[in-house]
């Protein structure tokens, strides 16, 4: 039995300081009950207790690139970040693009007992953008989220055939990395003031906008469910808002780093600030923050993309793309996007992503009978991220003071992280 005292909990209409009792894998009471003998008691001192965070977008690098991360280290990093579920992107080596690779990935995922790892599959065979992936075998194995993350499906005609096929598989989600390669080319940072000044090949925002517009048009026609990954431009936000107003099944996510930072941070050409889509303009960032608060963007997702220190210790233009994010996501979101709004915080980091991924045991209200997948988060605690549980250290937030810290994480009734309690 675990008892959490004086936790700030979202109830139906208000926030209350409660004592929450966990027995087995379930919350058994939320109220003011006296503490039973033999229980592990955690004093929350008013910190937020909410459903464990759900990350729709993680690169675990396993199999194939386990010097960067593996299922074990990625799971520890996720628990330290308050996550109780995460969607593993399929761009492993080899990719998850059919039944056998999906079954192997699911076996690795089920061997982990500290977090739900949801296995995503590719949209195209070999993630090569040429032919449809093995959807039926993956679907039968349990895969529901499909993405060629790293690339958009390059041909509109292929995407249309994919969407027409996947609309018939209940719960299947087409998740797109929205970037038109014929526009983005070999760019290295947002095409804006900094790229112009430094003469670095740019990644224009319109490369994202055209794919978002294309995908929404095809989703509208086919009826497929579309999820736009790591939205980064103000125009994308407008397109998504229009699609939702029209009643389409279109969801989206944004990363903590796109909410926290803009391309002005790139003057120093720090490879740990290089990712795709890139940090955009201050105007784009402002639009993303508004969209998260207003609910136009549903979910926070980290796009946790580990690279070894030696791989990032190279010239900016040669550095691999991607930054880690699991261990700083909650703090960055609280610091830069939602402030002290507990309801928006848990909706965007847990409730909405759990709904998008179709995870019934995640994102649930803190009430008797709910699965005990929980995070205890102190929104006022200041800290400076330094070293990480991830195998990689390529964080854009290292050395930056953040407000808000994960104190403990509970997965299926067991403590998976308590390093913030001290």
């Amino acid at each position, binding site marked *: 039995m675990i008892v959490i005292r004086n936790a700030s909990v979202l109830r139906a209409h208000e926030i209350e300081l409660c004592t929450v009792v966990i027995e087995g894998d379930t919350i058994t009471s939320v109220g003011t009950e006296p503490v039973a003998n033999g229980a592990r008691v955690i004093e929350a001192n008013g910190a937020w207790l909410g459903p464990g965070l759900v990350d729709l977008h993680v690169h675990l690098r396993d199999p194939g690139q386990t010097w960067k991360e593996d299922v074990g280290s990625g799971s520890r990093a996720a628990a330290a970040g308050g996550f109780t579920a995460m969607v593993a992107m399929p761009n492993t080596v080899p990719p998850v693009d059919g039944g056998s690779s999906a079954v192997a990935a699911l076996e690795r995922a089920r061997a982990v007992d500290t977090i739900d790892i949801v296995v995503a599959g590719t949209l195209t065979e070999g993630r090569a953008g040429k032919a449809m992936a093995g959807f039926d075998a993956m679907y039968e194995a349990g895969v529901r989220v499909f993405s060629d993350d790293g690339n958009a499906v390059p041909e509109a005609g292929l995407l249309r055939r994919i969407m027409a096929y996947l609309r018939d598989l209940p719960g299947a989600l087409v998740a797109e990395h929205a970037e038109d390669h014929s526009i983005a080319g070999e760019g290295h940072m947002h095409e804006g003031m900094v790229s112009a000044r*430094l*003469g*670095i090949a740019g990644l224009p925002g319109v490369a994202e906008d055209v794919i978002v517009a294309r995908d929404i048009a095809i989703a509208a026609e086919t009826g497929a469910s579309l999820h736009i990954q790591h939205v980064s431009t103000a125009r994308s936000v407008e397109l998504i808002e229009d699609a939702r107003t029209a009643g389409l099944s279109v969801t989206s996510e944004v990363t903590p780093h796109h909410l926290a930072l803009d391309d002005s941070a790139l003057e120093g050409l720090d490879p740990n600030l290089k990712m795709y889509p890139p940090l955009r303009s201050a105007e784009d960032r402002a639009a993303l923050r508004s969209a998260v608060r207003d609910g136009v963007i549903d979910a926070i997702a980290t796009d946790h993309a580990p690279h070894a220190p030696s791989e990032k210790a190279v*010239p900016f233009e040669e550095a691999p793309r991607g930054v880690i994010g699991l261990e700083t996501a909650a703090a960055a979101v609280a610091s830069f996007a939602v402030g002290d709004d507990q309801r928006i915080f848990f909706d965007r980091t847990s409730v909405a992503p759990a709904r998008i991924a179709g995870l019934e045991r995640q994102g649930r209200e803190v009430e008797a009978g709910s699965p005990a997948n929980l995070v205890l988060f102190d929104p006022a605690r200041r800290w400076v991220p330094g070293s990480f549980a991830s195998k990689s250290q390529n964080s854009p937030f290292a050395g930056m003071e953040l407000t808000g810290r994960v104190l403990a994480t509970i997965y299926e009734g067991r403590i998976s992280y308590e390093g913030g309690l001290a």
Partner: protein
Amino acid sequence: MSTRPRHGLVSLRGLSRDRLEGLLDRAQSYVGSQVSSDLAGATVTTAFFEPSTRTRLSFERAAHRLGAHVMDLSPDLSSTTKGESFKDTILTLSAIGTDLFVVRHWLADAADLAAEWSGRPVINAGVGRREHPTQTLIDAMTLRQEFGHLDGLRMAIVGDISNSRVARGHLEAFPTLGVKLTLVGPTPFLPNHNPWGVRVSTALDDELGDVDVVYLLRMQNERGAADAIPADQSYARRYGMNAERLSMLKPAAVVMHPGPMNRGVEIDDAVADGERSLILEQVANGVPLRMAVIAEALGGWG
């Protein structure tokens, strides 16, 4: 040698007018000077990761004229050179014994990284599309010789600006020196953002009557410029500097080009070889200007 703190020249951005003019003054003092022994015993290493005979030889000659020893490490450019081997190269040459690096590289942060990795002063001899500071200073020196001053001059930089590190160096230094810049070219060649806040024009003929300097750039087809505009002769028609356009200039206006030139494209023979051209003066100023930059970097003047 003096105790002046050693610093290289990675970027012109933010440099004071005093420092820029000090370099130009020093360079002017080296014009026609005898070989000196100011830097006897110093070793200057040229590390050129892009083909460039002219700039490398100009730096070598400048170092020799100051009495410095020169090591050249310009790797086999026929094989792909990764940044990682660039780091190894810099560390190796530091260990062998180098007082100053002169770096040319296709990567924008190569000079910064060479300085960071080696702990030695670094002179940027052209990195990425970012800056080519000594070319900019050579051009400032040449213009000062021609006009006697820089303050108030108007310069149109014409051509493939978005690919040009020369233009970006000019954009960082010429405004500080009082020169008003206008960027001229077809939209695909203009930077799509303007952090410098300079004038931009797509109509060369409208600009020619107002400027003191027409600074021509070549199309950098190796950086994809040819794909940005139609593959016909329209560029030369719209932006090529020819005899007719020369006649539209103010009487004292001059034409410059950092080389290499594509004759018949951005510049006609009649212009390149004509009396308005300062192109050979630019080349001649390369050695004294680079002497000044090397001497400054190694504390060779007090």
